[in-house]
């Protein structure tokens, strides 16, 4: 066999019907790639319906993986290889394939029925009519070959056999990229260990796919991508929601506060509930509430009792939680509200990504209700962001909103995970008795951070009442006094503003301190901006990149940074939200760059946009 051809960078997309197991195939190939030390980023692309009619365009599910021996920051704009299990998958995804790219097509998915469902005109089969001549087309009859491989598995019905089709494709791709099958065989053992026939049949088909590629030698060459030059250390593969869950658990461990998560299932946040519900041995209590409001209010109840209270949701749920967020803010108790943003408004685009809840996080409540907002930028960064959200919440006695989004929630990347001892301790002190100068407990007495004491029920001698009505300063008694109300509104605002003194200053991610253009992003646009800016820097342009974790309050040096650039460009997956706030806070003529298509920016379009200002 010839030695594999070395490639630097590959983007591959697996696409098929949502029942074809493409997410599993993609994540298996991802793990296999990660374990070799190759850098990567993924982008799973789910259909909105769980089970759209089989074979139709809305039913197509995709998984894109970008892997490279260089550092990778995005899942890639266009793919080099497109794996399609049926005609609909080809139709939906062909426009994302590079000219000359490879198509690996499952022949059986292009029968007359599938072609009709994919809206190809009568008698037209793209695999046969030469319309794909600009691509390298490899057609495999996956169904037939899978069934053949499983001839001896007489206990399995035809449907069960066909379910293993994705393993054939995976085996085939493993051969193509010169991989071994161990990681997936281990996975199958874990998953199907209890059903030997299913386990053996999956392994058999996986090997059949591999051997088929080997025997038929459809390719002149195999390909290999080498290890990326990453910081030395131990890595694992991580998805955003997974990292976020772990960040919450880590904050619970490092603060000594038991974690309580009150939540209602919603796409794309539910995986956090799933993950955390398995971590009961960490003392994690997950409460699947009757609705979004009960999600947050049970968390408020738990926080009042001294737990690390968290609620998780997405945009529509966030809207429902508004009043309760206001209560937490008035009570001045710690609470973390996680919003995995998705396309809105209303039900919007549940499975697509968007950054359109920033204004909601900022302003979406009645009254003057400032709540700190922070955001995560990559899948692994969700860990740090969650940890930091918890720290701010408990140390500043305030609800904190953490914004992630569907793109990083489900995306994966390698993560040089931390050691628990390297994580900072989160100091929390409950007040347990009166100080010697106090003769009565004052629930709204503040310290130098303007933070009030946290007293939990069960503390003798400090019994007190709190609530959503306006408080008298210091005593916390109900007060309708006009001066007091103004004072309290200002105090609550100042308390949030003061957090700026307890967070790191803003740093530039790349580029000179002063220059023509500063690309200022937040959240999941990080990878694309980083890739574009580093390319433009390499070409000698004057461009810099800063990425905000802290959106409210802003880092105290942000205003000064903005003054150092001719143009501030603010790319967002929304209709212009951060840009509005920046203009308001800093009176700066920041330029918006917006995409509202439910998908991340592509690097090429980002680069083009930045160039307009260079």
């Amino acid at each position: 066999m010839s030695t594999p051809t070395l490639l630097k960078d590959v983007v591959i997309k697996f696409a098929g019907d949502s029942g074809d197991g493409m997410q599993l195939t993609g994540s298996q190939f991802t793990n296999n790639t990660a374990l070799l030390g190759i850098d990567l980023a993924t982008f799973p692309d789910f259909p909105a319906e769980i089970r759209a009619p089989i074979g139709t365009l809305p039913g197509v599910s995709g998984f894109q993986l970008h892997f490279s021996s260089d550092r990778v920051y995005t899942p890639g704009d266009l793919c080099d290889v497109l794996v399609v299990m049926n005609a609909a998958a080809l139709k939906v995804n062909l426009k994302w394939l590079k000219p000359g790219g490879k198509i690996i097509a499952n022949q059986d998915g292009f029968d007359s029925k599938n072609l009709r469902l994919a809206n190809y005109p009568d008698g037209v089969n793209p695999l046969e009519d030469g319309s794909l001549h600009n691509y390298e087309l490899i057609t495999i009859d996956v169904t037939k070959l899978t069934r053949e491989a499983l001839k001896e598995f007489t206990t399995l019905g035809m449907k069960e056999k066909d379910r293993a089709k994705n393993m054939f494709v995976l085996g085939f791709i493993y051969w193509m990229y010169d991989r071994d099958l161990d990681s997936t065989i281990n996975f199958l053992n874990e998953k199907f260990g209890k059903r030997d026939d299913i386990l053996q049949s999956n392994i058999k088909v996986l090997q059949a796919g591999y051997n088929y590629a080997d025997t038929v030698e459809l390719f002149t060459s195999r390909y290999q991508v080498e290890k990326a030059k990453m910081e030395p250390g131990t890595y694992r593969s991580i998805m955003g929601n997974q990292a976020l869950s772990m960040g919450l658990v880590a904050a619970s461990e490092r603060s000594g506060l038991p974690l309580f998560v009150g939540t209602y299932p919603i796409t794309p946040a539910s995986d956090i509930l799933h993950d955390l519900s398995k971590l009961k041995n960490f003392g994690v209590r997950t409460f699947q509430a009757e609705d979004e409001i009960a999600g947050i209010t049970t968390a408020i109840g738990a926080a009042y009792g001294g737990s690390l209270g968290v609620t998780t949701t997405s945009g529509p749920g966030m809207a429902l939680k508004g009043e309760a967020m206001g209560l937490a803010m008035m009570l001045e108790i710690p609470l973390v509200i996680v919003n995995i943003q998705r396309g809105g408004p209303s039900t919007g685009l549940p499975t697509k990504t968007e950054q359109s809840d920033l204004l909601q996080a900022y302003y979406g409540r009645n009254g003057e209700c400032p709540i700190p907002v922070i955001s995560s930028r990559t899948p692994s960064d969700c860990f740090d962001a969650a940890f930091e959200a918890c720290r701010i919440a408990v140390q500043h006695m305030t609800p904190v909103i953490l914004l992630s989004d569907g793109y990083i929630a489900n995306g994966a990347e390698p993560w040089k995970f931390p050691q628990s001892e390297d994580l900072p301790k989160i100091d929390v002190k409950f007040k347990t008795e009166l100080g010697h100068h106090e003769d009565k407990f004052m629930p709204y007495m503040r310290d130098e951070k303007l933070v009030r004491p946290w007293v939990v029920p069960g503390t003798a001698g400090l019994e007190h009442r709190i609530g959503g009505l306006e408080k008298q300063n210091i005593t916390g008694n109900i007060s309708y006094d006009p001066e007091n109300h103004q004072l309290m509104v200002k105090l609550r605002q100042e308390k949030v503003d003061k957090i700026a003194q307890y967070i790191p200053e803003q740093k530039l991610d790349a580029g000179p301190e002063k220059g023509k253009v500063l690309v200022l992003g937040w959240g999941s646009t990080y990878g694309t901006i980083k890739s574009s800016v580093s390319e433009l820097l390499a070409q000698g342009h004057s461009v810099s990149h800063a990425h905000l974790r802290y959106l409210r309050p802003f880092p105290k040096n942000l205003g000064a940074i903005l003054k150092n650039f001719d143009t501030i460009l603010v790319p967002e997956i929304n209709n212009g939200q951060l840009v509005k706030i920046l203009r308001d806070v800093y009176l700066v003529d920041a330029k918006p760059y917006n995409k509202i298509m439910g998908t991340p920016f592509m690097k090429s379009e980002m680069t083009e946009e930045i160039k307009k200002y260079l």
Partner: protein
Amino acid sequence: MTDTINNSLPKLTAKDFATDQEVRWCPGCGDYSILAQVQRVMPELGIPKEDIVIISGIGCSSRFPYYMNTYGMHSIHGRATAIASGLKASRPELSVWIVTGDGDGLSIGGNHTIHLLRRNLDVNIMLFNNQIYGLTKGQYSPTSETNKVTKSTPSGSIDYPFNPLALAIGANATFIARTMDRDPKHMQEMLKRSHAHKGASFLEIYQNCNIFNDGAFEPFTEKKTKADETLFLEQGKPLIYGAERNKGIVIDGLRPKIVDLTEGVYTESDLWIHDEHDFYKAQTLIRMFDDVNIEGHFPRPFGVFYQDKNKPCYEDIMALQLEDAIAKKGKGDLDKLLRGYEVWDIVE
């Protein structure tokens, strides 16, 4: 279950449970009596004051926590039940009381009420039912009788009212009782029973709003009519009522029937014997909810309709699951969690 008094505690009195806050209900409001009974009963429960938490929503009744020198939260409309659920689930050792009303607990917060009951957290719901919205100054509520003329229903309300106890039993509540503001002794007993019940207790308290719905419960509370219009349930005792204790309830097939004990046809021994552990009897009793103006209507029952002592509580099972997970997997190891199943090393 009986109350145990913890002798090591200093003996508290009703005064110890009062706060320095001026009570702001309208003079004559039924809430005063409820507050007094709660303050009277609390010292007898043997719980340290600091372990008691009273959580309310919004409405006249929801001012309650401010007047109780325990821990307390006056929260937002309808959500006291959910807040209490989170607190109890995470701090099972606390004694958690919920103060809500017919608007707060059955309208805007109806969802949380039924789900709390279904989950059977060991908390006590006191639902002050005055059949009106008091705080917003007099609109009909979900327990107001049909055709009620109020500020928002000048032509009479169209909705049919909830029977709160039927809702509770529909949600499989494990303790269901009714009492009234004008019967302090009975209320005290019901409060003690609510507390003693291990599980979610649902106590409906008829409360007169003398400003917007005065006399709503008059037939049941006033001396003249009380004996004939009410039926006080006692465990193991026959269902007898009436000024002369001359009326009773028998079971006729599947239906309850009112009988006259003076006619010589029925005697006490024929009557329905109250059994608060009988789910089917409870359902029938709860449905005795007739309009007092209807000829031959049933008396309105008060007391404990139903108690299920055997259903485990949510927070206990939750705690067990945690213990179980630790027993099976060992106490969570953060480093193991961060590491996951598969890792790889990058060397220089």
